[in-house]
């Protein structure tokens, strides 16, 4: 991806320091941006494009980041907004915008690539976007339910129910593939309970419904 000339208009005027801490922090968080982008896009190349767009936007908006708040969550919010913004554009402009179109889960591009995934990774691709992003943020990314709610711009209770439904869906998909119907039927309730218990150990539960009120106003939406 290239940096467009018009993008430079919003750049901070001050001369960057030799060891700019914001830049250092950005560099350190690139691996996680790539991982989250991959989970949203599926396709590795479009995921990296999305992560790079996120870096450019973050750099342009750096003056709006409050030092001391969670930079990783701020970046993930930008990345997620960019993902959905690109996809809305793809829906309006398809088939002209091939890059954005390839980010739509289930596209031919992604399906051919998905053939190389593990069973769990493939099952993950068949979840809804909302369930997948919630499960990845909390179950793999180590975010609290509250931070995940900030990133996804929804209530904490909504994140909790999305994660719970994602876990159940994942289990039933994998049970189906493993052709063990009796074990799946008798163990389904325990499975969901155990998974939620695991997640609660990872992320302490929070009060429902408060996250959206505390949502950061700093993360640019476009």
């Amino acid at each position, binding site marked *: 991806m290239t940096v467009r000339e018009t993008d*430079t208009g919003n750049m901070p005027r001050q001369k960057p320091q030799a060891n700019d801490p914001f830049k250092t922090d*950005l560099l350190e968080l690139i*691996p996680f941006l790539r*991982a989250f982008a991959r989970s949203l896009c599926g396709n590795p190349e479009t995921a990296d494009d999305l992560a790079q767009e996120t*870096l*450019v936007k973050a750099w342009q908006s750096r003056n709006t980041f409050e030092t001391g708040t969670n930079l990783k969550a701020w970046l993930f919010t930008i990345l997620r907004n960019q993902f959905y913004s690109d996809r809305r554009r793809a829906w309006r402009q398809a088939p002209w915008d091939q890059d954005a179109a390839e980010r739509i889960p289930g596209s031919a591009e992604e399906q051919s690539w998905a053939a190389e995934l593990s069973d769990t990774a493939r099952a993950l691709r068949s979840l809804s976007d909302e369930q997948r992003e919630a499960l*990845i943020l909390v179950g793999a990314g180590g975010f609290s339910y509250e931070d995940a709610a900030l990133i996804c711009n929804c209530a904490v209770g909504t994140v909790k129910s999305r994660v719970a439904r994602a876990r159940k869906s994942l289990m039933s998909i994998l049970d189906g593939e493993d052709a063990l119907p009796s074990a799946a039927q008798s163990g389904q309730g325990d*499975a969901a309970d155990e*998974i939620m218990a*695991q997640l609660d150990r990872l992320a302490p539960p929070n009060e429902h419904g408060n996250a959206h009120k505390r949502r950061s106003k700093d993360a640019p939406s476009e």
Partner: protein
Amino acid sequence: MKTRQRAIGRELRRIYEDVAKEPVPDEFVELLRQIDRRGGKGGQTDS
């Protein structure tokens, strides 16, 4: 069953961490260098 459920939890983290552990492609570092230079010159291109 529980062993398998834990395995799925581990697999989820592995899927995410496998990407996070990949070396960052050069184009990312180059991109940051590029936008840093552009910002430092007050928006002029450096090509």
